[in-house]
């Protein structure tokens, strides 16, 4: 068997892998069991010019809305492929496991033509093409990119677009209007001050506030957004660490008090799914999450969905500054085989984003706001009760959604801070009384500084 394979190597160029397997002898076919067949199970697609111009391979997450993947894999990409004489292959893996595979592809300089992750990954800047042309192409047709997206994919230091964010998910507050009414706050979490005052009463009804301080993405997002509302920022416009401020001490003390009076220990144990589950179980009075909470409730518990409202992030002393929940960013590898079609795919998709917007059930907001016309009307058309509750997403996406790293740009240092969970760690240590807010602000300022210095040395900030 080994010998035959070695013979085949000499002719490798003419052989596809499947041919190779066929030739490799009965034993191999036995082991393989015809597994390769599925990829052609859709039948030979008909292309405009009768033959394939190439193949385009995409890797992305398994979308929170399963129907989106079915539409994207079987309808949208197939149609686009036929129109462009390209076979589009879409592979999915779980979002938490994407970074591992992305690193493996970079290490091998082989893999998909492009990969999409739920946050920009500036650390791959040197391994991807400059996505500038795609941005320009879409800008020509649809006007400017949203600031939140621009600041998530552009490195002002190297003047490079290290990714192309096709969409982002706004991160609203989900709150139970029945619980809040009972507690005497029928208008809900308008301000953080209101949250602080309502929290003890809500908790005494066994309905705590649910803002995670755990090693997971939702905690990261919620806490960073809360910081901004209090005027505490990880970095400034010049990308210098600005954590050791009075404002940081203020937000840390606020969060500590909020935890002591209005939450329970569960927030330290959370996974990314926990706030959804606790909310769906009717326990939480408030959670910060994308619309996955209400969408799941509509499927399994309509009654609860009816009583769940979505709202912009509460206003703090520094106003209302929320974060995106997901910044879905495509990267075209510089070793991609089909860079041209990858770029075309992205600009085509972005220019006509309506299908993705609708099929994701308003999870995916276009990075170019004008790529989807009449967003408010579309949101209003959602039939779930209370009618029109998704309309607020338009305001949230336009006015209250900032990038990670605001007021600066998203960069590799912020990425590493995010992925090593330093911000939830800081909040949790203060909330549990292991550190004073002052001590935490000082110490984490130093720790963050080390990470920034590292990436600055590498010339990326």
């Amino acid at each position, binding site marked *: 068997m080994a010998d035959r394979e070695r013979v085949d190597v000499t002719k490798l160029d003419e052989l596809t892998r499947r041919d190779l397997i066929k030739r490799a002898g009965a034993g191999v076919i036995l082991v393989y069991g015809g597994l390769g067949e599925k990829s052609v199970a859709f039948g030979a697609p008909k292309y405009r010019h009768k033959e394939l111009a190439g193949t385009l391979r995409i890797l992305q997450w398994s979308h929170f809305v399963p129907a989106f993947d079915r539409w994207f894999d079987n309808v949208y990409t197939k149609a686009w492929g036929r129109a462009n004489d390209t076979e589009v292959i879409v592979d999915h893996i779980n979002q938490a496991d994407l970074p591992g595979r992305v690193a493996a592809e970079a290490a091998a300089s082989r893999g998909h033509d492009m990969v999409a992750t739920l946050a920009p990954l500036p650390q791959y800047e*040197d391994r991807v093409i400059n996505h500038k042309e795609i941005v320009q192409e879409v800008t020509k047709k649809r006007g400017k990119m949203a600031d939140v997206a621009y600041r998530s994919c552009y490195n002002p230091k190297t003047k490079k677009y290290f990714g192309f964010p096709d969409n982002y998910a706004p991160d609203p507050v989900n709150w139970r209007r029945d619980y809040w009414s009972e507690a005497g706050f029928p208008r809900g979490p308008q301000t953080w001050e209101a949250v602080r005052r309502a929290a003890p009463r809500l908790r005494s009804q066994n309905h705590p506030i649910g803002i995670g301080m755990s090693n997971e993405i939702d905690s990261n997002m919620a806490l960073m957004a809360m910081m901004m509302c209090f005027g505490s920022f990880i970095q400034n416009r010049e990308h210098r660490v600005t954590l050791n401020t009075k404002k940081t001490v203020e937000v840390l003390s606020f969060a500590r008090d909020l935890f002591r009076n209005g939450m329970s*220990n569960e927030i330290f144990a959370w996974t990314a799914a926990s706030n959804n589950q606790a909310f769906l179980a009717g326990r939480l009075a408030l959670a910060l999450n994308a619309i996955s909470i209400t969408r799941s409730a509509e499927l399994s518990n309509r009654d609860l969905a009816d009583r769940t409202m979505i709202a912009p992030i509460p206003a703090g002393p520094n106003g209302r500054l929320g974060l995106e929940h997901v910044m879905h960013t495509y990267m075209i590898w510089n070793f991609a085989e089909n860079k041209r079609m990858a770029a075309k795919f992205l600009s085509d998709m972005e220019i006509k984003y309506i299908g993705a917007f609708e099929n994701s059930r308003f999870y995916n907001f276009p990075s170019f706001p004008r790529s989807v016309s009449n967003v408010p009307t579309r949101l209003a058309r959602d039939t779930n009760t209370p009618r029109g509750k998704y309309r607020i997403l338009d305001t949230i996406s336009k006015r209250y959604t900032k990038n990670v790293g605001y007021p600066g740009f998203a960069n590799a240092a912020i990425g590493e801070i995010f992925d090593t969970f330093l911000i939830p760690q800081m909040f949790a240590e203060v909330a549990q009384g292991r550190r004073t807010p002052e001590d935490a602000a000082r110490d984490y300022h130093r720790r963050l500084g080390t990470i920034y210095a590292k990436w600055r040395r590498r010339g990326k900030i």
Partner: protein
Amino acid sequence: MVAVAARDKTRRRRRNPFEGRRFLATVLIAPAVTFIAVLVGGPLLLAIYLSMTDAVGGTLGGDWVGLDNFRAAWEDPNFRRALRNTLLFTIVSQAIVLLCAGLIAHALTKPIRGRWFLRFLIILPWAAPVPLSTIGWLWIYDSLFSVVNWVAKQLHLVDQFNPPQWLGDPTLALAAVISVHAWRIIPFAVVIFLAGLASIPSEVEDAAKVDGAVGLRKFWYVTLPLQLPIATVALLFGIVFTATDMTVVYILTQGGPFNSTQMLTSWAYFVGIRGGSLGEGAAVSLFLLPLLVIVAVLMLRFARKVEVA
């Protein structure tokens, strides 16, 4: 006649190269060594090289920075925590494993009714894919739907509203991680012990009986010495399974709460793969290698000495 035939055979054997100890040994060992050298040796050298560069984001190369990555890692409190945890998880879970597996294996040699079924239940954790069975534990330790807490609440042992958080309190989370490690390795050790017990030649057993060695005495003077080489290897693998495993922590706690349950492997993943500081991640993951090597060499030496004695 007989002597001549024997000499004939000996001569024939000498001509056959497969009768030469050296040659035969080389032929038998070479494939395994070559395979391992190519597949692990090369990548390991590359990983060591990476740990001394400022490589980022999955790129297998960068500027030489010497031991900077190790220094930077050492100065990070989260790294030290991870280092301490790795040692703690490994030692404690293996102590539990040895004790429990020893007891179980010994009891399983008794011809009792239902033994087959009991053995099936005990083996189950080893048969389940770890990533998935850890998900099972994640559900058992869930922050809200934990069955452990449900029972404790019914018995009024814990606060109804704010029960203990198995994955949210540093001490409990350490215990949770250790419990899962021990849980999955106990069956492994049981099987090794059983196999070891089974391969003790019956002559030895009979001799022990004739000498009147029974119970603990027999265990101490007969069973244990014969078991030691295999038990040492079992322990060594237990240590390696725990110290180099990332899956349990990665799925169960992600290193939380507040990075108090990180192990070197998981911390290396978060820093090097997710965070993109590949060089530093490589340094973190290789940090314990020298210690593991020393432990392994000592234990392997020990196993050999016992055998010779």
